[in-house]
């Protein structure tokens, strides 16, 4: 519970720090990317703090690279 509150506070602090200057400079595109990334980051952190399994990107890579991997190590055996 405390960790979720902490994460949300951090998220709010980051937006207080960044958003005014983005609005002042009228950087709309940047604001969109910033918000999407920030929401993604906050959600990911909350999931992690609740100990919910987040899929590991390396598992995906392991599956993609399996054929090439086998080829390299078979030829160097």
């Amino acid at each position: 519970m405390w960790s979720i509150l902490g994460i949300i506070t951090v998220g709010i602090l980051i937006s207080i720090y960044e958003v005014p200057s983005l609005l002042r400079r009228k950087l709309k595109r940047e604001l969109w990317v910033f918000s999407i990334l920030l929401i993604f980051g906050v959600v990911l952190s909350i999931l992690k703090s609740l100990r919910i399994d987040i899929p590991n990107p390396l598992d995906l890579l392991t599956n993609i690279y399996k054929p090439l991997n086998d080829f390299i190590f078979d030829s160097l055996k």
Partner: protein
Amino acid sequence: MFKKQKISHYQFKILVVMCFVGTSILVTPGGLAAETKQDAWLAAIIGLLLSFPIVWIYNFLGNHLYNMTLIEYTEKVLGKWLGKLVSLSFIFFCFINSASLLYIVGDFVTTQIMPETPIQFTNTLFVIVVVMGSRLGIETLARAGEILYPWVIGIFIILIFLLFPNTDIKKIQPIFEHGIKTNLRGALLFMSYSSLTLIVLLMIFPAYINKPQKAKKTFLRGTLIGGLMIFIMTLFSILVLGHDFTARNVFPSYILVKKISLADFLERMEAAIATLWIITIFYKIVIYFYGAILGLAQTLNLQDYRPLTLPMAMILIVISLIIYPNVVYANTWNSTTWIPFVLTFGLFLPLLLLIVAVLRK
């Protein structure tokens, strides 16, 4: 916004050395010794020699880049959509790398130095510095590098001199017992940690360099210095600890420096190598992180990359915590999938770009 900052070729050399030495100095001796036993130092030499053609390819690609970063160039050469796809995968590569390096920092600090501190906090503290560095930009980082570089080299030389009394030449015999293929595999491992990861420097070189022509020479020189440092560290790990003990440790260089004992007076020097390593790995992480964020900003046609640093840092911390569930997973990943993964971006991507660029002419 992006193009104002410039660094000199000497500062670029420092970045090359830091990036090359980065994680490798602490981790490579163990991986090499597990693969090639007492010939680990030979594999390091072969790896160093094979690094030069790789850096030469990067230099050659640098000729074509002129004033663009790798991401901008990819889009120009491969067209808008394919270019963006390749750019995004390159950004993913940089980001995953910075997360795994961050994991190694956290793992090192929590297992060796501060076992009571949870890994989340060490990672967060480290990321704060990384965010500061990437927000201040490459020029500030390069200048800080000029201050820290003499310390890195100085500590390294002192430690190596202090280790001389402990060496035992019998530990590297018999030389070349395992044949050429094992050594090539070791060399590939060496390069996968060091020279192949230098591709990320093409985000800085030549776009942010004062005199790109001079920087080409310093790119090669930096590779030589970094490679020699890792080679010497590997050689001494084998000479002092023996291949078996080196292979069994996650951080063999750290254990190695613990062996220093001069007249029962000068002991426990391991904090020195931890300092050295934290400096170099900071540069490696920051350059990867900077590369990922600058790349993302350029792919999405943003005017400023700075607003992205803090949210990306948040994601980075979480990814660094989940990326390796345990050390066994990390070791398996590093000695298998990591190698084709880094080859894709470190070797095939520049070759592809060069071939397409030549065909288009």
